[in-house]
């Protein structure tokens, strides 16, 4: 039923926006393996959102190229490419005039799914993000709390079995008290979905919790990339050390949490 997840490769990709001197993305090369979950961290303005938006071509590269499964992005038909990529962003993203189910149905409708399959899949996903379908199916976005709306956003990104998932600060607008629960839920949903995921966040602990690998962005460049353990134990440069490890106490805490998540042999 599910098509195999995409692998993604950036090859010396650059983005320059007209009217701004510094490039938004500069000479960026990285590979994301099929099925991998790459967390991307960095300050605002570091290019992490631009990186995502290049992949579904909301932003076009000025230089270099991006390929998916070894094929260059431009070879894909744009609509089909976007329908095969799930995209969820911070805050809104849901259409206020459509119910939860109608929001989720937008892509399946376009793909021509039969009504029954559509309904079954929508209910399945709502249940997966812990929103009881019979209660939430026919609600409007304004009747949802921030956390509920975010879950619907993630469900919509997943509904058509995406081969790649792009999440841009999906918990950015969520109450910090709710975040750990949502993060744990997301991890479960993502394991279930078995798709390649690029996950942008400015929350380092979130990145350490969710990512198979972490990419650190700084001023449009890829500063460092590696597994959480490699980066935490041997940060390759002082900038990475500063944002990933923090002070002595935070560093110890983060390593302890990592040990909890992936015990050493």
């Amino acid at each position: 039923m599910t098509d195999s997840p995409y692998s993604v490769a950036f090859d010396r990709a650059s983005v320059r926006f007209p009217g701004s001197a510094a490039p938004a993305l500069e000479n960026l090369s990285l590979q994301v393996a099929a099925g991998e979950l790459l967390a991307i961290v960095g300050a605002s303005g570091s290019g992490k959102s631009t990186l995502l938006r290049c992949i579904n071509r909301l932003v076009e590269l000025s230089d270099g190229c991006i390929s998916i499964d070894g094929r260059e992005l431009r070879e894909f038909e744009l609509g089909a490419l976007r329908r095969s990529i799930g995209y969820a962003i911070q805050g809104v993203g849901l259409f206020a005039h459509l119910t939860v189910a109608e929001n989720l149905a937008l892509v399946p409708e376009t793909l021509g799914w039969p009504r029954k399959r559509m309904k079954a899949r929508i209910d399945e996903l709502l249940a997966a993000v812990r929103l009881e379908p019979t209660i939430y199916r026919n609600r409007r976005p304004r009747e949802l709390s921030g956390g509920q709306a975010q879950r619907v956003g993630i469900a919509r990104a997943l509904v058509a079995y995406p081969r790649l998932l792009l999440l841009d600060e999906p918990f950015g607008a969520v109450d910090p008290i709710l975040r750990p629960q949502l993060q744990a839920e997301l991890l479960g949903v993502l394991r279930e979905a078995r798709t390649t995921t690029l996950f942008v966040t400015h929350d380092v602990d979130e990145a350490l919790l969710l990512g198979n690998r972490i990419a650190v962005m700084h001023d449009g460049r890829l500063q460092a990339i590696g597994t959480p353990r490699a980066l935490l134990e041997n940060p390759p440069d002082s900038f990475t050390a500063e944002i990933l490890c923090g002070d002595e106490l935070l560093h110890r805490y983060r390593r302890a949490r990592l040990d909890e998540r992936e015990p050493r042999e």
Partner: protein
Amino acid sequence: MISAIVAHIVLCAVAVAIAAAIAIPSALALADRPRFERPLSALLGALYTVPSLALLAVLVRFVGLGDTSVEIALVAYALYAIFRSTVAGIRAIPPEEREVAMALGLPAWRRRLRVDVPLAMPAILSGLRIATLGSIALATLGGYVGGSGLGSILFTGFALQNRAMLLQGAFGVVALALLGEFVFRALEFRSLQP
């Protein structure tokens, strides 16, 4: 009197319907293509500024006296308000919403119908309201050229110096205008509640 009111309503409703059928699809097609939208806008705007009596005079010359001339004039005047407000409504959609619709990979026409039109609906309705009120007023002038609406009563009353008839016609027009205003305001209000 009743038949004149009905005729007035039919004249205006048909005109707004025809104008909407032309203006809304062209606005949806051209809203993102300023190169084509601007000349059409200018053309419709120019048409809109032609004095109504002059336009009616020209139409009578070519089409003859009667409702057909009035109908053509009404459509010509209604086009501009509907076209402009639809374009403005589409352009006023917040960029984030348009971007999400794009990122979902919806084909352009589906994006328009499922996302853009509902979001632009308050603006589209206000264009229809302005066009309707304009038509109700303008259709009265149709009485001059043999049109059947309330204008025929008003102008006959004027010609015969029959004050009762004159007032009937005038009040009829005002009442219709208020009714039109009320109906569209109610629709706009509803479209603002998602």
